[in-house]
């Protein structure tokens, strides 16, 4: 991820952008924990709420890949395809875990 380019695109300083991305990773990790229990309890409404939150944050920061994952979580849950939802959540989690490499 080219932080300089992305921060420029959003009109933010690079260090500001980094700060926000770190915050995103933190809050998303905790959101994903709640998402997991929501999936286990088959609580569609709660899944939708968390997905909504993830979508918002990803969109704010121009993190398109995460945005698409969040959208997929939302759609598969509302279609009742909870297995797919769990898969998308897993990928999201992996991506987050690997973000430390950037």
């Amino acid at each position, binding site marked *: 991820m080219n932080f300089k380019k992305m921060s420029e695109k959003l009109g933010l300083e690079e260090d*500001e952008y980094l700060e*926000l991305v770190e915050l995103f990773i933190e809050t998303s990790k905790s959101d994903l924990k709640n998402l997991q229990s929501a999936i286990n309890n088959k609580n569609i409404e709660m899944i939708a709420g968390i997905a909504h939150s993830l979508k918002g944050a990803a969109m704010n920061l121009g993190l398109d890949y995460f945005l698409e994952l969040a959208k997929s979580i939302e759609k598969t849950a509302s279609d009742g395809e909870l297995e797919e939802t769990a898969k998308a959540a897993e990928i999201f989690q992996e991506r987050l875990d690997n973000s430390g490499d950037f």
Partner: protein
Amino acid sequence: MKKILVVDNHPIMLKFMSNLLEKKGHQVLTAPDGLSALDILKTNIPDVIFADLVMPNISGEKLCRIVRSKPELKEVFLIILSAIAVEDETNILDYGADACIAKGPFDKMGDHILTILEHLDTVRTHEMPKEILGRESLYGRQITQELLASKNHFEATLNNISEGILELSEELKIIYANPAAVSIIGIPEETLLSKVFTKLFLNNHQKKIEDLLKIQKEKQRMVTHDAPFEMNNKQVMLNIIPIKNNEHKPILVILKNITSQKQIEAQLQHAQRMEAIGTLAAGVAHEINNPISGIIGYAEILKDSDQKQTPDYDILNRIIKEADRIAEIVKNLLTFSRDRHEEKSSANIKDILSSTLGLIEKRLIKDGIQLSVDVPDALPDIKVRSHEIQQVFLNILNNAHYGLNQRPLELSGDKFINIKCGINEVEGRNFIRTTFYDNGTGIPKNILNNICDPFFSTKPPGKGTGLGLSISHGIVNNHKGKLLFETVEGKFTKVMVNLPIHAVQS
């Protein structure tokens, strides 16, 4: 330099907005939800509030309405940041907001926000761009539309049921109230939200409710109390339900107004009690009558023998007089205990009054109350169930007695009750009016409308049922009469009982 409050449940939004606005030299306050925002607003008046719509605890829409209902926040610009701007057709102006910015990528959003803030500087009125800024770069999202439809469906249900539903935050503040709850509690929604739930009740009930709330928290199950609590002069049953599977752990409270049920129950209980007392009294009375006759009889016999003009003659007369008194009391008790399913019959108010006074006179005089009675002899008859009217008079006199005993000792003058009867015309109909005037503590203006309400009492808890006047009111109404009050707090109370004159008079 402006003071800006940002309310959003996502930390990223809060951070972004703080950075953006502080860089431009503004002072930024943040709140993660409506409840915390209201706390901040208690001690801070910002120039601008940015609020998210979708938040836990108090939603953005509710927050806007509450802000707009507070006069001290009249000049505050309210700008909504909405992630559901495109899906939700509701006009944000209905909430009282001044503008709406759709959430999206930070660059565009940042631009819109800064543009609006500049706009505020140049045009210091509420003439803001009425359309939603940023909407053009978003598209309707099917999922969100479905979510909104489902939400509206539930809201429609909650808005129409007769039970009150409250949602409490973990700190026991009210974060949602449906229309039925607002109506039961009698406090407008804007003031009700963020109030602590237990504060809605009388002091002596608050502890009990706190205990119930503790139990539901520990045991994580629904909790209810077998007796209703008083709220806004109604009898309300509470069901407290913890909500699981939710990161915020709110509490649901269901309010059921059972006042009319309780009223009917109370009337039935009262009627049964009266009947029981009546039966007992009748039994005792009949038993006593025999010995009384005996006493009077034997005294008369002694009188007839040559005891005239001796001191003993005087004593015998006194014995007869006292025995007569007992007979009178027994007669009153029998009148009181007669069958309540009686038809109304012709009676004279003077008789009813004197039998009433017979029962209560001594107690009043014992407490230093002077009694004066002014009843003409030739008043027309009324058609009534005499013992019920007696009950009404007893109730009024008991209340007067209580009021007089509450009088502060420094007040000069004696305590008195004045009873007057006369004919009174109201709207072409003639009534016998009985007026009870006492110079007791009077009735405060603010409760005058409540005194005939069932369970309403100014006596300390445990004393009296609060039912006396409501039952009296019922009885007078059943007789097509009227119960009227005139009073000045601290000076006097005047109670007037109007009873229709028996039409068949020669």
